[in-house]
């Protein structure tokens, strides 16, 4: 991975700045988090549409909802770890139940903060956010997709949660590729019929790496970019299960309640097949940087390829569903 690659949060803040320049209804709310969100420039250039709520995530979300109800289009931005736990009731009531035009942007999601520890990890944010009716949940995999999804959110009305990472990430969608994204669609980034990997966020890149490694061994892996966790692309997921008979999910999230759970909920009701859910286990993680934690818990391309081989053995033992 090259450190010169852009980060999703920089892609987000650049796209947000363009949206603010274009649409004077857009307001940005932070909670002493303008640095981590990288919106200092925006705050300086557009002070009348920037709101600093102080270290008070609950109030930041409520203020965001109030602005929205007064006709503004609001992005409330700060660390995913805090916005998915500290102020969940405000997200539930003031944003989702109220159907406020508020986008919650959880930056430095997953294990982005690495060694800072469990207080700063957000490994259940997807689980929390996807249970509120009316709240869309998106997890982009690279800078290009982050840019596109930010523009999408800026142009759409209604509540959403966007989780983005902190550090530089490798490209899945090259800059200028022109790919567009519609909620509820999962692009198929690699074809195969031996198994499917439903991935989201940075894991899409590693899943693609695994698919390429296995291709050389004659194993065909279909890779789905499930950036739209809610709404999920149910038909593409079901089709992948039907055509491959084995589905793995992989995400920078705990194994409970995230993308894996969303895929499993779908398949168990529509087309049950053997499945493996790859994510962080149900434990507080050891200290380490995000790449160290990825490697420790088996998310490199090589390790994911190993998980696919193991799962293919499991598939061989389980009778294929009709």
């Amino acid at each position, binding site marked *: 991975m090259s450190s010169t690659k852009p980060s999703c949060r920089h892609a987000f803040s650049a796209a947000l700045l363009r949206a603010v320049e274009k649409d004077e209804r857009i*307001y940005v709310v932070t909670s002493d988090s303008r640095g981590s969100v990288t919106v200092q420039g925006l705050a300086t250039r557009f002070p*009348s*549409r920037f*709101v600093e*709520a*102080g270290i*008070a995530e*609950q*109030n930041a*979300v*409520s*203020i*965001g*909802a*109030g*602005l*929205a*109800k*007064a*006709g*503004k289009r609001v992005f409330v931005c700060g660390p995913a770890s805090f916005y998915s736990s500290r102020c969940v*009731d*405000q997200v*539930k*009531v*003031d944003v989702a*139940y*109220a*159907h*406020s035009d508020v986008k919650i942007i959880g930056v430095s999601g997953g294990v982005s903060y690495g060694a800072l520890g469990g207080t700063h990890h957000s490994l259940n944010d997807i689980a929390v956010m996807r249970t509120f009716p009316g709240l869309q949940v998106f997890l982009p995999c690279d800078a290009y997709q982050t840019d596109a999804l930010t523009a999408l959110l800026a142009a759409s009305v209604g509540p959403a949660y966007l989780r983005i990472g902190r550090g530089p990430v490798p490209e899945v969608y090259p800059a200028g590729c022109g790919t567009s994204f519609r909620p509820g669609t999962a692009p198929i980034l690699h074809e195969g019929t031996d198994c499917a990997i439903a991935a989201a966020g940075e894991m899409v890149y590693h899943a693609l790496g695994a698919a390429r490694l296995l291709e050389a061994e004659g194993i065909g892996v279909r890779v789905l970019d499930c950036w739209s966790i809610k709404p999920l692309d149910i038909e593409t997921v079901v089709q992948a299960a039907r055509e491959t008979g084995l589905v793995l999910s992989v995400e920078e999230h705990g194994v409970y309640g995230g993308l894996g759970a969303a895929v499993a909920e779908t398949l168990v009701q529509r087309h049950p097949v053997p499945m493996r859910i790859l994510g962080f286990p149900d434990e507080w993680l050891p200290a380490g940087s995000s790449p160290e934690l990825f490697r420790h818990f088996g998310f490199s391309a090589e390790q994911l390829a190993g998980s696919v081989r193991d799962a293919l053995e499991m598939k061989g033992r389980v009778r294929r569903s009709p």
Partner: protein
Amino acid sequence: MLTRGQPLTETAREVRQRLVQMIYEAKGGHIGGSLSSVEILVSLFFHAMRYDPRQPDSQERDRFILSKGHSVEGYYCVLAKAGFFPEEELSSYGKFGSFLYGHPTCKVPGVDVPSGSLGHGLGVACGMALAGKRDGASLRVFVLIGDGELAEGSIWEAVMAAAHFGLDHLVAVVDCNKLQISGPTREIMSTQNLAQRWQSFGWEVREVDGHDLDALNRVFDEVPWQVGRPQVLLAHTIKGRGVSFMENVASWHHGEMSPEQYEAAMKELGRSPEAGSR
């Protein structure tokens, strides 16, 4: 609908009658806090606030948030009387599929934000008032909070922010009925020096008898009391006001009336209970 020129004391009496009837017919409701806040709502909706019920989404109108969302029955009666929806709809309260839930929702014309989980309204009101201030708009934001609700920490985040942003067209009204579901508010979490607490956060504070309509009207007429500061009105009220056996009795926070109690309540409120029977 409200009869033009009708004294507001009469409007308040009608609201009390109607909310008691609603709660009786629904076999339960948050009656104590609804009764304590009647005059506050009547003064706001029929004297102080500027709005047009035919344009409930107008951006220019004054806003109201019932942060103590459980006191919803009186609020629904006032909204209906103000013309946001037909008064006949009130009889659907408590019935399956009604748009009138036991706490306010956006499905009710005139309601901007849902409430019921306490401690939310003031923060949302800050956002509305901030938008108005930055737009240079004339809208004012009123929010009704319970005194027990002040134990929610999120309230104090909003108290801090409103003063920081100088939201002088934001008015918080605290329904100080001094009781909450488990007993006296001061015993559950101290409300000592309430005025000083708000003052020390940078708010302009006034106190009023929350059942004195003339006093409420006067104090709302004088908004903003001081330019550059948000304002809070500590409205001293009696929980269960108007029904003697409910007054200052914590267990009437939420309750179901027997037919005899309903009859007695309606008699005290000056109406024959037959006017609205089950």
